[in-house]
């Protein structure tokens, strides 16, 4: 379990360790008040009023001749005890209701939300003042009321998290496994809300202490018992005569609250930041070394030519992890090259290297990438961006997540056109219409006004292809462009790619894992495994007579030619096992 690890992380954080130690110290001192302080907090000797520190009274005496140390320690009991009471009430009300509302939803959820919104709309200070007038000046009553007032913060926190977890498949799986709701909550849900609740507890404790002190300071407290707030009040009244009186309660309140807030921060850091990040190396990006001469010997294609490409990612400890080990590939104008491989083979890394869009930490370490004969490996970001706008274009795998839900299709198509081609609003709209026409969207004018959620996935992918074609690129990099689509829509999108290739002479680097897609549109294929190209050839050759053992394994796993399963026969299982 990760509880121990989280705790260790909190304590190793300097601020976390310090604030935890300080809180422990304060709580211990307050608990041990009778041992530490020799005096009774209420015992007063008027003759010693405002007396300075002395042997018997290390912090001196207050306006009524009472020992300040004793009052601080005993007052802490009331103050911290009150905060604890408020917290307990808030947790008892907020957490279970939040769990049930989030997990069950439905009517209870609606009712609870209404109640919570109502409570949150109430001005806390006014309610506290009113409740004191009605229920009497008792610290505990005030803290119970405060607990009720802050309970919604716990409710909302827990409900939100639980509602998310409820949608997870592992909760469905647990239901199907026959676990009761209580068990599911205990096993799968509580572990997730635990961390955020701890953070919230620290923050609410701080608020409770501050509010309570505030009330006492205003003189709304009980008056008779010593609390930090009441001490502040008294010190404030005598601020002209003995300014130092304000120091001790102020210090106690300040330190306690600081420690709570810092501790909450440390816990949050420990929970959120579980994995160390690799060191940033944005600026110092060394130019990739040239590929070994043997690779460069092969004749290079006109449009895209990659030679000896290696890609590496920085590890947290500063070393590099190489994921692509020397890739060669070529795309000619009017040709679709399929880059085929399984997950982790490096096919997407290769495609992103060409685009100059490797994720943070990744970089091209060796080799050369030329587009139209121009070297682009190690190109400055600004130059690469210009290249991406005009010569290179990209079509992603997930059409929906690559459209901004807040803008219409029209504005998302027009924006890059206006930027790259410098067109006016009117011309850009015409261009967008023309692009949608190019990708065979039936009613371009209507589509331009729609938002991404109003169109289907296949339509979204067409829109993205339209966007990619907007600046009339020569090379299209498509990363699994049809994987998220249904087969009928996939066939249409592949038709579109084929047409763009034939009519415009577009070169396409098509990254895919689907050999059926390869057979459908690709002219040539490069098969990639574990960061290397194992075989390149025409589609007929690779699919028909593969030479590399890995390509053969891949083709053997295709189920197209596997016979359909024979019809069911009763007792099939028994006859086989017998």
């Amino acid at each position, binding site marked *: *379990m*990760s509880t121990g690890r989280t705790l260790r992380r909190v304590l190793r954080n300097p601020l976390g360790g310090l604030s935890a130690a300080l809180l422990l110290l304060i709580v211990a001192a307050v608990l041990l008040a009778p041992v530490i302080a020799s005096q009774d907090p209420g015992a007063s000797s008027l003759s010693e009023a405002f007396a300075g520190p002395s042997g018997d009274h290390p912090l001196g005496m207050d306006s009524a001749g009472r020992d300040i140390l004793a009052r601080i320690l005993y007052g802490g009991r009331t103050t911290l005890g009150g905060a604890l009471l408020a917290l307990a009430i808030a947790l008892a009300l907020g957490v279970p209701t939040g769990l049930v509302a989030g997990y069950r939803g439905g009517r209870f959820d609606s009712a609870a939300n209404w109640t919570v919104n109502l409570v949150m709309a109430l001005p806390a200070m006014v309610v506290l003042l009113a409740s004191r007038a009605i229920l009497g000046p008792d610290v505990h009553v005030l803290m119970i009321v405060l607990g009720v007032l802050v309970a919604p913060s716990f409710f909302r926190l827990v409900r939100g998290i639980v509602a998310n977890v409820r949608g*997870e*498949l*592992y909760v*469905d*799986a*647990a*239901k*199907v*496994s*026959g*676990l*009761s*709701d209580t*068990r599911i909550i205990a*096993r*799968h849900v509580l*572990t*997730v809300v635990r961390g955020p609740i701890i953070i919230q507890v620290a923050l609410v404790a701080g608020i409770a202490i501050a509010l309570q002190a505030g009330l006492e300071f205003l003189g709304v407290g009980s008056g008779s018992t010593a609390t930090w707030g009441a001490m502040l009040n008294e010190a404030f009244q005598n601020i002209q005569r003995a300014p130092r009186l304000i120091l001790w309660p102020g210090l106690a309140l300040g330190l306690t609250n600081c420690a709570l807030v810092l501790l909450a921060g440390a816990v949050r850091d420990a929970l959120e930041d579980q994995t160390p990040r690799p060191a940033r190396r944005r600026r110092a990006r060394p130019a990739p070394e040239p590929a070994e001469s043997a690779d460069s010997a092969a004749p290079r294609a006109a449009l895209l030519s990659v030679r000896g490409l290696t890609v590496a990612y920085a590890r947290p400890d500063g070393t590099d992890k190489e994921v692509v080990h020397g890739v060669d590939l070529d795309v000619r104008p009017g040709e679709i090259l399929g880059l085929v491989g*399984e*997950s982790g083979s490096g096919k997407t890394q290769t495609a992103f290297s060409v685009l100059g869009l490797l994720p943070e930490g990744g970089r091209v370490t060796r080799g050369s990438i030329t587009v139209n004969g121009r070297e682009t490996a190690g190109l400055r970001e600004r130059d690469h961006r210009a290249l991406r706008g005009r010569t290179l274009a990209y079509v992603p795998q997930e059409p929906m997540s690559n459209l901004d839900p807040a803008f219409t299709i029209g504005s998302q198509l027009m924006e890059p056109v206006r930027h790259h081609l410098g067109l006016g609003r009117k011309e850009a709209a015409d261009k967008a219409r023309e692009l949608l026409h190019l990708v065979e969207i039936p009613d371009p004018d209507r589509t331009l006004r729609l938002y991404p959620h109003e169109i289907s*996935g296949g339509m979204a992918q067409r829109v993205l292809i339209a966007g990619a074609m907007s600046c009339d690129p020569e090379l299209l990099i498509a990363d699994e462009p049809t994987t998220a689509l*249904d*087969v*009928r829509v*996939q*066939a249409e999108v*592949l038709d579109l790619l084929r047409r763009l290739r034939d009519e415009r002479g577009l070169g396409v680097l098509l990254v895919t*894992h*689907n*050999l*059926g*897609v*390869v*057979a*459908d549109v690709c002219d040539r294929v490069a098969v990639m495994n574990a960061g290397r190209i194992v075989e390149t050839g025409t*589609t*007929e050759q690779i*699919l*028909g007579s593969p030479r590399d053992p890995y390509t053969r*394994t*891949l083709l053997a*796993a*295709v*189920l*197209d030619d*596997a*016979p*359909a*399963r*024979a*019809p*069911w026969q*009763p*007792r*099939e*299982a028994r006859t*086989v*096992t017998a």
Partner: protein
Amino acid sequence: MKKTPADAAPSDATAPDALLDVRDLRVRFPGKGWRAPETEVLEGVGLFVRPGETLGLVGESGSGKSTIGRAVLGLVPVRSGSITFHGERIEHADPRRRRALSRDLQVIFQDPYTSLNPSRTIGDTLAEPLIGQGTGAREARGRVAGLLERVHLPSDAAGRLPREFSGGQRQRVAIARALALRPRLVICDEPVSALDLTTQRTVLDLLLEIQRETGVSYLFVSHDLAVVRFMSHRVSVIHRGEIVETGDAATVTSEPRHDYTRTLLLASPVADVAGQRRRRAAAGAGV
């Protein structure tokens, strides 16, 4: 042309020996927002699965294919129609009955990444269904080792967290979890569509092997005709909440009778250049 399930496949009427018998199942989801109209996801679906049989359920996204499985499992409320499992009506089973049913009725989900709780060890996840049925913690731990062996995972996997495993291995864990209670029927909801081609084949082979040895039935939901054809004795094709065609796997996937099935079949590309060219030509001619 609309066809009722009975028209589409006479063999689909009923089977006296069926383990799972679903008739005229209707499921609606509430619309988003206040008083929004409900959307009907299943519009009267009928199917059955016999002991030791695999029924493949194929359709596109949004066709309602996964909803059928979820309705059988009690994860979505049933509007009308009947679900009979092992002679018992279960479409409105109460939570207590549901928990008892989980002994016989299990599931393997599509996504092996979110179907395992990331903060629980594999052993913990596998023991979950056993503990849910009242098995003692010690005995459950003993059974976990056997389950891991069953799905060809190393026995030290029990102490590790899901993130240490690949997609295929995680799906093996999900299979082991489904098998823990020795169920009669497992709903397989796109169990291999998140996996690589070679991994996909080994997971399918594992499912077939388990079926041969234990006689478990599968309701195998997938969008991939080739996978369904390989796995299923019979195949039902679902389109917009209705089953348009049911029949033996070979018949449905090579001589489909319904237009929709034909379009679906011709749109699925095959990894063979000449074959795919023929398919594309046929699809172009047909539409």
